[in-house]
């Protein structure tokens, strides 16, 4: 191909946005160049997609759905309000109870625990050793 192709002007050619002078030059080039003509068709088909797909048919239930959502909003808000106050209150009570319980347990341990039973812990550890993790996994497979 001997010439400098005009691919870059074609979208503006399609949209009729070229100056008179440039437009004439493009048209002259198109007469001679099959490749640019072919790209012009390709480009035109692509841009035509917009014309085909725009303004899609809207659902007839659009407003029905919307008004249902509109109605559920206040209810949702109320629920939100309830959750917003009840949830922190609940967790605060749990936290205070936990701290209080911990303190009670702590003071019991320091005063009352004279005879701890170390054997039970050791037993537990031994059980764990009897069943190594590798064999456990192998059994699973």
């Amino acid at each position, binding site marked *: 191909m001997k010439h400098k192709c005009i691919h870059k002007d074609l*979208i503006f050619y399609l949209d009729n946005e070229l100056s008179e002078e440039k437009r004439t030059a493009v048209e002259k080039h198109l007469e001679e160049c099959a490749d640019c003509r072919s790209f012009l068709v390709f480009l035109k088909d*692509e841009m035509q997609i*917009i014309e085909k797909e725009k303004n*899609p048919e809207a659902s007839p239930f*659009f407003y029905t759905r919307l008004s249902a959502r*509109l109605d559920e*909003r206040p209810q949702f808000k109320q629920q939100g309000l309830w959750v917003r106050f009840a949830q922190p209150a609940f967790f605060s009570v749990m936290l205070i109870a936990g701290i209080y319980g911990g303190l009670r347990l702590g003071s019991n341990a320091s005063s009352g625990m004279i005879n701890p039973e170390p054997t039970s812990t050791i037993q537990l550890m031994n059980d764990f050793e009897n069943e190594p993790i590798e064999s456990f996994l192998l059994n699973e497979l």
Partner: protein
Amino acid sequence: MDESELIKGIQQGDNKVFRVLVETYQRMVVNTCFGIVHSTADAEDLAQDVFLEIFRTAGSFRGDSKISTWLYRIATNRSLNFVRNKKRKGFFQSLEETFTGGKNRNSEISENRSDQPDQNITDQQRSDLLHRAIDQLPEKQRIAFTLNKYEELPYQQIAEVMEISLASVESLIHRAKKNLQEQLLDCYKKKCV
């Protein structure tokens, strides 16, 4: 019913007036969202969110611009957010795919395509390519291009929606077309369709 009556009615929470507003602008809002998200179902969901936002925030509407300008602004913002979130999700999904062998992606694509089940494959490929090319545009170019091509808005109104100068709109649309053409040419040369 003129614009100020519509606004007043919605500000007073009048459902009948709201219905008039929705019916007047529904096509416009759905089409604008569609130009950015390329799916009728998603565009309708977004349009619903747009109208709910209008109903909720009508009190703050200053009335110094047209209702359509206000709607376009919310519609484009929400659509861009939607696309951003989808992209982010897509990223995590592709990460997941590399670990799980990937079954999820196919279902998403077929879901997108189910919008127009009867179209033949070449038309579908064409529109997929165009959508991909539009999605590649920087966000401002994408908004200006969509408003111009899908909604056929004059540059002046696009400038009002985007709150930029007329010259900026001209430049955005010019660059958008150039970028689109470049991508389509690239595909044409590689025979990707």
